[in-house]
């Protein structure tokens, strides 16, 4: 039994390692885009529009073919990785940091602040994230910064709620009481001693959010509310490709593949993390 369980766990590790490996490669590609991209992602060569990928007769100049304006798809995907992943990471970090900080404060101190923030979070969680983000973008206007801001604003409440719940369950733990008796300042206790022990579900939540935000960005592009063109994002490339599905499959296939594999890898990694840290977690 014990041996078999070990084998299973190892298999889980293998999947997670593969996912992590894929993500590392993706991230590296994103970071190195300016050096490894064969072309500028925005350079148009209208005469070479809709060139098929190299193995489908398009020639090696454009490995994955060109899009409807003759831009190199491989380069656009590489640069798109930067934007799509970047948007997701920044938005989730902002949302996570804000939500967690507020949650720790609310959970540790309680009182009026807690009631106010909890009410605010409840109000916000009553609203579907997609609708909230669409509304915020209607207010702020589309664009890279605004998309990030809208997603961060729309996302903090989940972290707040979870962080607060975690801190509430730890607030009266013996080591916290001990720290308090030693006269350590509250803020230090809250962030140095309580938070690290409450962190694991938050990390799991964040990993799933990254995937969710990438998908959400593509929905925004579909609705015409996403990051400004000509900046490439996977979502925008996919949204633009839908008129060309029947005549130029490569416009949709490669950004779609990049997006799906990345989101899949993130989700699998999140699963693994959760299994490792706390299998009962509902995220």
């Amino acid at each position: 039994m014990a041996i078999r369980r070990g084998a299973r766990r190892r298999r889980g590790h293998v999947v997670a390692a593969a996912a992590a490996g894929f993500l590392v490669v993706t991230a590296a590609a994103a970071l190195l885009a300016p050096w490894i991209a064969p072309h500028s992602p925005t350079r148009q060569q209208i005469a070479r529009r809709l060139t098929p990928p190299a193995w489908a007769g398009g020639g090696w100049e454009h490995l994955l073919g060109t899009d409807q304006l003759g831009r190199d798809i491989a380069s656009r995907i590489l640069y798109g990785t930067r934007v799509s992943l970047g948007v997701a990471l920044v938005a989730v970090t902002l949302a996570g940091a804000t939500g967690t900080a507020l949650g720790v404060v609310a959970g540790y101190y309680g009182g009026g602040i807690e009631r106010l923030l909890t009410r605010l979070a409840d109000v916000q969680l009553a609203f579907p994230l997609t609708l909230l983000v669409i509304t915020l973008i209607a207010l702020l206007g589309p664009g890279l910064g605004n998309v990030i801001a809208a997603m961060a604003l729309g996302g903090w409440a989940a972290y707040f709620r979870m962080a607060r719940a975690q801190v509430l369950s730890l607030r009266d733990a013996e080591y916290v009481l001990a720290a308090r008796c030693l006269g350590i300042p509250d803020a230090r206790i809250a962030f140095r001693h309580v938070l690290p022990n409450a962190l694991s579900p938050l990390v799991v939540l964040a990993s799933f959010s990254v995937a969710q935000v990438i998908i959400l960005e593509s929905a925004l592009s579909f609705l015409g509310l996403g990051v400004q063109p000509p900046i490439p994002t996977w979502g925008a490339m996919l949204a633009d490709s839908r008129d060309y599905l029947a005549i130029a499959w490569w416009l949709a296939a490669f950004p779609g593949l990049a997006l799906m594999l990345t989101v899949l890898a993130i989700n699998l990694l999140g699963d693994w993390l959760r299994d490792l840290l706390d299998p009962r977690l509902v995220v």
Partner: protein
Amino acid sequence: MSTVQRIAALVAFVLLWTTLGAGTSAPPAAAQDPNRLVVGIGSIPNTPDPHLDSTANALPAYATLFEKLVATDGKGGFRGVLARSWRQVDPTTWEFVLHSGVRFHNGMSLTAEDVKFTIERILDPATRSPWLGRISAIERVEVTGPLTFRIVTRGPFAPLLQGLTVVDILPAAYFQERGPAGFAAAPVGTGPFVFGEWHRQDRMVVRANLGYWRGRPRLDEVVFRAIPEDSTRVAGLETGELDVGVLVPPEQVDRLKARGLQLGTVNLGQGMVVNLRSNVPGPLQQRKVRQALNYAVDKEAILQSILRGHGRILNGQVVGPDAFGHNPNLKPYPYDLSRARRLLAEAGLGGGFEVTFHGTIGRYTKDKEIEELVIGQLAEIGVRARLEIVEGGVYIQRHIARTLGPLWIWAWQYFPAMDADLPLNFFTCAGVGNFFCSRDFDELFAQSRREMDPVRRRALLQRVALLVREEAPVIFLVQTPGIYAAQKRVKGFAWRPDYLMDLHRVEVGPR
């Protein structure tokens, strides 16, 4: 059974019940019935009341139920629809005679009182009719007999008939009896079809008007389906769920043809341009810069590569040859980069400049790709345009508030009147949302509005067009194509430059 099981059962029951039962109603409106035409279009009217929605997509559906006094004849003139004849009594007074024997769908005869009521309703600000601006020059309507009336304008106003091409005549007595909400629930007009059903954001159904005064239509029923997504509309054509679909993306044409559908393209009365804000300080104040931008854009590339040959290059004016006042002697700005660079250098901007370009996604045919292409081409002469997409809902608002630009994509609509007066009105110094100001232009344009003789008015508008080409207040691009497809069994369908469809004569054969 435990509580848990009861709850699980309850959840399952509720889900099943809502899935199967509590849904939508209505019999399937598929394209099976041989005498029913199903038309796929981006949206249907927001309300069956034709005075309250001016969206282009609403116009074909309204035109099945309602009729106007006059319509354009496709040759720069007008033909009577409900009006049998008209003449001008003096510079501010027009006299109309209605056809006799025209009946509304409820059996009432059309009289001059109905016309008076209709025009006054649109002019009443409380109605909130989007058409108000088109006929606001009308001061009053005087009924002079059962079928005769006079329209009096505030000052001489040449484009009166143009304004009347948007005015759907409603039955006064019926409307007053029902009230606006009652009328919208059961609208009545004089058109070839009578109202059937209207389902918000879904479909509008009209049925043959057997007593139509110009003979009953050949179809028994027309269903307008609101399908916002282009690829879904094309799929509906491929599966046969739609008999007719409009605004087909240019890339899909070959595929639909291969499937045996009939395809047609009409150049819609809508000139796509990049507006240039030249009435505020900046590089665009110089005419040479505006001209340079025109030389720098390859219109042919837009037409051939993005629109795949559908549409028509604007030859240095905002309207096409289908508009009254079009100047056939003008040439488009050729694509000439060295000339563009020279002009920029002469303007002291040899190094180019940075500028904001406001664009849209999905507002106009292929708008995003055209924006990206134009920006890529401007970069060739050192004009670094930064694209900012503005959400569709606020685009007109920002245009009017003058917060777009200095460069922004725009399509100047001139349907249904098909007259250059309509767009040019906005190039005056006092125009709504104005972005360009020239005394010469204003003077010439005002003259055209006072000129009652069509021949002289046309000549004046052509002189205006020449002036506009030289001043280059916009980058002239293309007249946008309206591509449509119809199943083989559909006979006699055509989409018109004024966005309307002659469904009266359409026939549908057996599948």
